[in-house]
């Protein structure tokens, strides 16, 4: 029996060597020359293999509900990428996924798992909506920035409790962040059916926010500039992790906490930064959904974006930059499946299945290759 302490058995740590061996982290620890080309090629094969497996599995499932897979796949692509308006919709969907997965990937780099992105999105959305109501009628140049800042703070607030409990009491953040998802969900439910409810709608929807709190449009067809806010932020996170001293220390904790501690890095401070920054970034996603997409607080704000964000972060190997293509791919799937929902009655959450198969296939191929790598490492001695 062992104590479930702060260096807990339940948190995946110490896989920095895996990261270095996979060459996904660019300059740091990437093998040089031919060896590096080989690992990149192996990566490409893993991702292609996973996509093929997912396409085949999904084709079988589509046949099972009586749809033609080829027609369905063509429709997924045309509805998500076939026109400028379709692309705008895909970028809208990509924004919360990108921010969420960058948030998760960021915390993972220090060895923390944030499963609470859903709750942090709701936290951000609640504060954003409240701020928009409070500043109703003021000029947009004041309101919109204030609303987005409020959203960021809202997400950070939801992440603060798990961060403090982890730092002070050693409670594993996996469990506290999940529990807060439900607390935040019911808080949003209360506000959107109670004090802020839209009496006309008759469901869990608040009254709309003012025009001054709306995110400007981008492209056509209801696109908004959220993606233009998210991309620079994600690049900045990647830069901080990779090119600053603080970022190096942060990753050192994720690689080997004891060694980092002996090197003078504070584990408590790193843990709080990891989770709270993660929450701040996820909170922005909530603010963008409110100001850009729904223009109000609604209950269906995040259909499991939080768990998808974890899958994307895993696919991206905990790299915020890698989350950009992965989040785009997931967004294509979601928009495409929404259109399949309308045409062949595919349930909205069936897209989860496809996403999960992609991720599990990547994990499978990676572990199969990792088995060989692990054996080699064992012989060299670690």
């Amino acid at each position: 029996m062992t104590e479930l302490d702060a260096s807990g058995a339940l948190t995946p740590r110490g896989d920095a060597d895996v990261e270095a061996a996979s060459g996904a982290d660019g300059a740091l620890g990437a093998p040089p020359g031919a060896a590096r080309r080989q690992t990149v090629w192996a990566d490409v094969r893993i991702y292609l293999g996973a996509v093929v497996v997912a396409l085949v599995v999904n084709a079988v499932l589509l046949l099972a509900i009586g749809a033609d897979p080829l027609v369905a796949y063509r429709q997924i692509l045309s509805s998500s990428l076939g026109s400028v308006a379709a692309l705008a919709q895909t970028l809208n969907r990509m924004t919360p996924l990108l921010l969420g997965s960058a948030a998760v990937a960021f915390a993972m780099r220090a060895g923390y798992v944030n499963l609470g992105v859903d709750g942090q999105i709701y936290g951000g959305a609640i504060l954003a909506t409240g701020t928009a109501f409070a500043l109703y009628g003021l000029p947009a140049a004041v309101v919109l920035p204030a609303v987005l800042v409020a959203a960021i703070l809202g997400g950070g607030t939801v992440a603060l409790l798990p961060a403090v409990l982890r730092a002070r009491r050693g409670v594993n953040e996996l469990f506290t962040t999940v529990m807060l998802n439900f607390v935040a969900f019911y808080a949003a439910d209360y506000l959107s059916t109670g004090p802020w409810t839209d009496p006309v709608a008759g469901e869990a929807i608040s009254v709309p926010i003012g025009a001054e709190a709306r995110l400007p449009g981008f492209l056509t067809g209801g696109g908004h500039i959220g993606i233009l806010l998210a991309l620079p932020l994600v690049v900045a996170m990647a830069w901080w992790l990779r090119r600053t001293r603080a970022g190096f220390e942060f990753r050192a904790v994720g690689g080997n906490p004891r060694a980092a501690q002996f090197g003078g890095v504070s584990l408590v401070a790193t843990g709080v930064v990891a989770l709270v920054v993660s929450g701040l970034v996820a909170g922005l996603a909530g603010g963008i959904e409110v100001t850009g997409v729904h223009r109000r607080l609604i209950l269906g704000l995040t259909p499991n974006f939080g768990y998808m964000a974890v899958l994307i972060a895993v696919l991206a190997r905990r790299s915020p930059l890698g989350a950009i293509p992965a989040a785009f791919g997931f967004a294509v799937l979601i928009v495409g499946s929404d259109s399949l929902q309308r045409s062949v009655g595919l349930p909205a959450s069936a897209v989860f299945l496809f996403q999960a198969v992609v991720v599990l296939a990547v994990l499978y191929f990676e572990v199969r290759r990792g088995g060989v790598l692990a054996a080699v490492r064992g012989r060299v001695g670690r």
Partner: protein
Amino acid sequence: MTPTDLVDANLLRTMIVVATPLLVAALGELVLERAGILNLAIEGMVTLGAAAAFVVLFAMAGLTGGVALSLLSAATAATVVGLVLAYLCVGLRANQITVGLGLLIFSLGAASLLYRAVVGVTTSPPRVPTLTPEAVPGLAEIPYLGTVLFRHNLFVYAALLLVVPVWWLLFRTPLGLRIRATGENPKSADSLGLPVQRIRYGAVLAGSALIGLAGAFFPLVLTGGWSESTVGGRGWLALMLVIFGRWRPWQVVAGALLFAYVDAVGFVFAATSRLIPVQFLQMLPYVLAIAVLVQVYQRAQAPAALAKPYDREARY
């Protein structure tokens, strides 16, 4: 709401019904975790079990054997997911957290697709009759206790008594000792000649079957229907219960009753309370879970090898 309402016989009766899926799922997770495997897919497995049970009840409406078959299909569906979990985490030693979350999403999607494939697109969700409570002759007439304890369906009793065989297996049989040894120190277990991988596979499959059965209780005794929010986080609560119970079956029972009580307060007072908004009552189990984690966590004794893959060729 008055203080006497909090010990109302019908409230306590609801508590016992609500506790059954929590308890069965938590006991399944307990078996898995005692063998050293963390199953974060539990919420998805319960949802899938509920969907599998519902579609069988729906398709076999009124036919005899429908209930037994629905239980079987719930257990089977979750066991298939468990098999993938075991293959990736035990066989291939993949990271249990990422595999668990992948399978969580997979199961949620599979449940929706299964429901859609059998039930089709409907305007109003279909319902099946829930199992009728049966009064135990004589005992049910006892005032108060009779209502609380002796007016349940047979399956509710079976679920409550399930703790006995699980406890007996884990703590009173050689196999249970081996399962626990595998979760504490797989290296030692291996050096004593125990088939660590096979024991872990077995524990994952058996635990998954129980978790799937827990799902069947939602359509069978609680809701009579299925939707994507039917389980609504109770799978995650079952995961918390294992920690709350400190990986011991009897404490898990106590925890299940406590959480079910809080959940039932939400159910019962949702309709009547004007003072507190429903949503705050619905929040209670999750707030309680956080409070409990803070209290229990530091002294919690997790199986030492929990969530750690075992590689017999690795050097330590």
